[in-house]
């Protein structure tokens, strides 16, 4: 039985439909990441699970029990807020102890649990300080500590790393993953950062305008995106898209005419009629210099040398931006034409409605 189950979940604010019928099953111990652009409804969905937003329609069940009308404290969840929501007038100890004080637990039990959480989060030397004296990462840990002491069934994280700088973010990302391993609890994590989603999740839920675009493991989403939205959202730099028209399809291959770039024949069994508009997708990291099943010539506008990688930015004859990512430091420079190639089996194909064609 799944630990969290969402059925036909809907949320409207007045006339605006924010969440449009979400169905999702989360198993015990899973690390699930809700990812999507700003305004896609991911935070609203999390707040609905937490009990901070009412459900307009549908059902939320935790541990098999419908919790739509239960207050947050009775749902067995603990939430870590984007702003950490630490009480500025209380010490770190009292911040972590807050939920236990609400429960009116005896002092000895409070101390035991707070000290245990502080040890896990390396906050022991900071227990008597106030949040104003802590760094961003330490505040984050205090917020997590406050969630841990409640020993919840499900942890909810609302963009917890978005206020940290890049270096601290990757450090905290690893700490959170280790914490997940240690506690073995179910964690639901909201982010707009696809790198966070890819590195942390067991299961990613990609949201787009209040609906689920695709659910899958990070590598499933990377290798087999269901649609243009997921293909464009997952991966950095994002996937290159080239507009084309089907020139022929015989049940085993589809030939796509890409205008001045030529025609590419892809192994596909789907039935697609000739003349249909399609989009060809190729990830920047799947491009190679000068070789491949298909080659095209471009002139880089900008070249970025990162040492470990080199990134080139150019524009295709059709006006589309085209990015290439190469390992190491190959000999490319801006305004000097280069020939790029790629393998046929690395190419993605999407129909006129943006759905993947396999």
């Amino acid at each position, binding site marked *: 039985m799944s630990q969290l189950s969402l059925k036909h979940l809907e949320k409207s604010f007045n006339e605006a439909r924010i969440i449009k019928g979400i169905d999702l099953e989360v198993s015990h111990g899973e690390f699930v990441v809700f990812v999507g652009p700003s305004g896609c409804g991911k935070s609203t969905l999390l707040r609905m699970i937490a009990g901070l937003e009412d459900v307009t329609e549908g059902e939320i069940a935790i541990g098999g029990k419908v919790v739509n009308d239960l*207050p947050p*404290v009775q749902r067995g969840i*603990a939430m870590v*807020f984007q702003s950490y929501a630490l009480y500025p007038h209380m010490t770190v100890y009292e911040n972590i102890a*807050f*939920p236990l004080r609400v429960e009116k637990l005896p002092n000895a039990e409070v101390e035991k649990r707070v000290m245990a959480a502080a040890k896990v989060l390396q906050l022991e030397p900071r227990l008597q300080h*106030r949040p104003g004296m802590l760094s961003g990462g330490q505040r984050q840990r205090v917020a997590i500590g406050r969630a841990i002491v409640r020993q919840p069934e499900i942890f909810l994280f609302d963009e917890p790393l978005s206020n940290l700088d890049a270096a601290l973010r990757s450090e905290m990302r690893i700490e959170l993953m280790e914490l997940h391993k240690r506690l073995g609890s179910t964690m639901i994590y909201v982010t707009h950062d696809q790198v966070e989603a890819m590195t942390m999740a067991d299961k990613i839920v990609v949201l787009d305008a209040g609906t689920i675009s695709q659910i899958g493991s990070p590598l499933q989403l990377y290798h087999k995106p269901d649609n243009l939205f997921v293909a464009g959202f997952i991966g950095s730099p994002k996937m290159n898209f080239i507009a084309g028209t089907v020139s022929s399809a015989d049940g085993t291959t589809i030939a796509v005419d890409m205008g001045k770039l030529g025609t590419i024949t892809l192994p596909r069994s789907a039935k697609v009629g000739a003349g249909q508009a399609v989009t060809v997708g190729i990830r920047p990291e799947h491009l190679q210099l000068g070789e491949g099943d298909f080659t095209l010539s471009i002139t880089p506008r900008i070249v970025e040398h990162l040492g470990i990688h080199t990134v080139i930015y150019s524009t295709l004859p059709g006006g589309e931006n085209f990015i290439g990512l190469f390992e190491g430091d190959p000999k490319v420079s801006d305004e000097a034409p280069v020939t790029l190639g790629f393998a046929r089996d690395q190419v993605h194909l999407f129909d006129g409605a943006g759905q993947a064609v396999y």
Partner: protein
Amino acid sequence: MTSTRSASLFALALLAPALVYILIIVAYPLFDTIVLSFTNAALRPTYDWVGWANYERIFGAGNFTEVIIRTFIWTFFSVALKMIIGMCGAVLLNAAIPGQTLFRVLTMPPWIVPMAIGIFMWGWMYNGQFGMISGLLQNFGLTNGPVAWLAYGHTAFWATIVTDVWIGVPMVTIYFLAAMQSIPKDLYEAAWTDGAGRFYRWRRITLPLMLPAILTMSLLSLIATFNSLDIIWILTQGGPSGSTTTMIIDTYKTAMGSRKYGEGAARAVVICIFVSIFCLVYFRAVRKLSQGEAK
């Protein structure tokens, strides 16, 4: 070096009008009052230096101590009621209730109505024969006959406090509401997620985070109430039998009624000393609060 000097000259030039204003409006009258308090100035063209005689007289007379105690009691109840009612009002106006904007607007009239008109209105309401309060109490059978609230010492004392509270509450409410709204919403959401009820959230989050605002408002209200002349003067002129005579009324009566400017000045200086002590206590408390937060 030159740029530092020109910067400080520029700062001085900007400060100059305010400095001149403070010197003329605040410093000079204050200094003059202190000088006057050591003289026997009255409605005569000249006056003599009398040393501490005015202070000896006012503290020796006996009734001044009584006036001081009455002023403190009057001020304490008035400020305490303003703070409590203001806080309740702010909590209600901050709650997501239907017609919230209307209620916010309805808080304002005591503040918008010119003070003298508001006080006269209360004077009429307290009237025994024509007053609304006496009439209503009689209609509901709560009193046997008309009650002239301002005619008896103890009722007049409380009647003036009620009017002062009525006038002072809107400002306290709006100030507290603003302070309340500056507390991040997610603190409450986090507490609610942890199971904290409404009162628990108010006690452990709202109240401590509003402490600086409560302190500031208490001091401002304390000074204004301590120096409040118009309400008591219009309603009772300090009567009956001095039962509503506070230090400021006493000073005004001495200086302007009896034309004893020297003695009146001495009484004003005592008020000034009390207000200065309030300010010192306030600044100490604020410093302690900010040190506590920095720890």
